[in-house]
């Protein structure tokens, strides 16, 4: 638990975009902070708006974005298109889920990697050296040969390593990883997660890991935020949330993690709400076993409880 300075702070972030006549409130007021060296997991079911959140941090998602995203003391929302471009890649970077479609199929791996350096002012030769070195760091064999090969000549895992290399190339202050391993088969997943962990440690990168898999979060993150229907229901230290989940939704999610073989899983009834008209009051109340009438009418305020922030009327009681 190191208390050094804050790398990134998100205040009341809202992302709404319109689909036909309806407006989707994918992210509806979110606050969290990422400290130096933190590995902050954002966990939620699919459709909870977590990918939109990831993209909005680097201001790449379509739709109306409001609120504040402060990285290294600079609010990204106030930057012009020209300025934000300088930030992207150097101060903040992102790793996507689909390695196969994230790379340009008709361009050599080397060129795509060197591009990160050359765009930010490095000379060609220096970019080549650094890219070569990067491929080695992310564990890709025969780096020189790989520089000249094309994406389709690499395996899924190998490609994800290239994407990671690109993301950490300029030692950014914040790395966002949006479901980095879910597209890979299981054996490769572990390797990639390990790689992410080691890189984060050795380069002191603070990362935001977006995933739907509690296990992945537990594996490499120290802090965690649970997202539900566009809102952050519980944020805090991973160990304490895992040991004592306060928000009913977090508890339900915890129940879904297979601990041993004996226990059978308690499936969560109902399905994720429609983000274009979320339920009144607390958005989880229709599926919440502890719901009271207040939950159905009044939206719970985020409540600071020892090292945690919970948005639930009955936090602490249950």
């Amino acid at each position, binding site marked *: 638990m190191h208390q050094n300075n804050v790398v990134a702070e998100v205040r009341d972030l809202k992302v709404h975009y319109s689909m036909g006549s309806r407006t989707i409130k994918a992210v509806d007021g979110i606050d969290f902070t990422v400290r130096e060296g933190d590995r902050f997991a954002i966990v939620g079911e699919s459709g909870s708006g977590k990918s939109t959140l990831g993209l909005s941090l680097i201001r790449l998602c379509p739709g109306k974005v409001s609120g504040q995203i402060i990285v290294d003391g600079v609010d990204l929302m106030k930057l012009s298109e020209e300025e934000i471009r300088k930030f992207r890649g150097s101060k903040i970077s992102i790793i996507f889920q689909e390695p196969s479609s994230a790379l340009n199929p*008709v361009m050599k791996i080397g060129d795509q990697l060197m591009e990160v350096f050359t765009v930010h002012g490095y000379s060609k030769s220096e970019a080549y050296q650094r890219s070569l070195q990067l491929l080695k760091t992310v564990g890709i064999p025969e780096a020189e040969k790989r520089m000249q090969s094309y994406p389709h000549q690499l395996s899924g895992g190998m490609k994800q390593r290239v994407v990671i290399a690109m993301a950490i190339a300029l030692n950014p202050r914040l790395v966002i990883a949006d479901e980095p391993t879910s597209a890979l088969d299981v054996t490769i997943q572990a390797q990639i997660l390990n790689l992410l962990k080691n890189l984060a440690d050795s380069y002191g990168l603070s990362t935001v890991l977006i995933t739907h898999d509690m296990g992945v979060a537990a594996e490499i993150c120290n802090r965690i935020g649970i997202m539900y229907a566009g809102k952050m229901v519980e944020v805090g230290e991973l160990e304490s949330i895992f040991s004592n989940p306060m928000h009913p939704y977090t508890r339900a999610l915890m129940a879904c993690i297979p601990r041993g073989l004996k226990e059978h899983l308690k499936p969560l009834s109902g399905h994720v709400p429609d983000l274009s008209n979320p339920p009144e009051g607390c958005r989880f109340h229709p599926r919440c076993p502890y719901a009271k009438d207040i939950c159905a009418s009044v939206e719970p305020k985020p409540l600071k409880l020892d090292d945690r922030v919970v948005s639930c009327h009955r936090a602490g009681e249950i």
Partner: protein
Amino acid sequence: MEPVLSALKYFFYRLLTLAITLVGLVTLIFILIRSIPGDPARVLAGMMASEEDVNLIREQLGLNQPIYIQYFIYLKNLFTFNLGVSFRTDSPVINEIMARLPNTLLLAVTSTCLAVILGVPLGVIAASRKGGKLDLLLSTFSIAGISLPIYWLGLILILIFSVEFRLLPAGGSGTPLHLILPTVTIALYLMAFIVKITKASVIDSMEKNYVITAKSKGLSERTILYRHVLKNALIPVVTIVGLQFGALLGGAVITETIFAWPGLGRLIVDSINSRDYPMVQGSIFIFALLYALVNLATDILYTLIDPRVRLK
């Protein structure tokens, strides 16, 4: 060694299918042309010629032999690339074709280049300014271009540039000036087509994930467009231009008729009208060969642009 071997195997396979198609085509033409009424010997001898003269000519042309013998002789010659002698002019078919072929190729190449040089950039602009005024203008131009009948366009151009302003010759060949109107007529249709496909394919490529990755690396919109998107977007354009180039050779018949351009298309039409069997068969054979070569070239070009594609 492995890629060379597979390339050779590929070429052999392509040549084999080409041979079968060509033989099929030549047989079809052989039957078609002979089932057209009208006797070549009589056409050659002229309406006022006597019956004996017509029979004499028929013998000289070898038309009195039974059909299947004529067919085998023709196939035998075809393998030695001997296309026989034209009924009408007594000179070898291959010379007549070689005298006309460059004109058709010249027209096809210049109009295709003009269409590509103008079409691709316009397509890219239309895509990058999607929804804007310029995009609307370019899209309507491209839809109108495709719907414009080539022969009407040709006439209108003649009406304006040869009749009213007498700037350009109405037809014929010889000086580069003669090339302008026919090339513009063909290029306009082709360019409209290219603008449409380029725009669609650029838009399609813009939505791909690698564009977002590029953005996340801090590249500007324009750099992404020219460095990443364009190369991907050109792949479908190459195939379509290749196909269109083949169709262009076919379309030459009309443009060459309007502009009196002494190309292969017109030669075939004249030969059909004068029942010059060897000439019709020979020129269509060369046409088909050219068409196959263009398709092969497009496939090879395809593999150059898109590394994922191997000659399989």
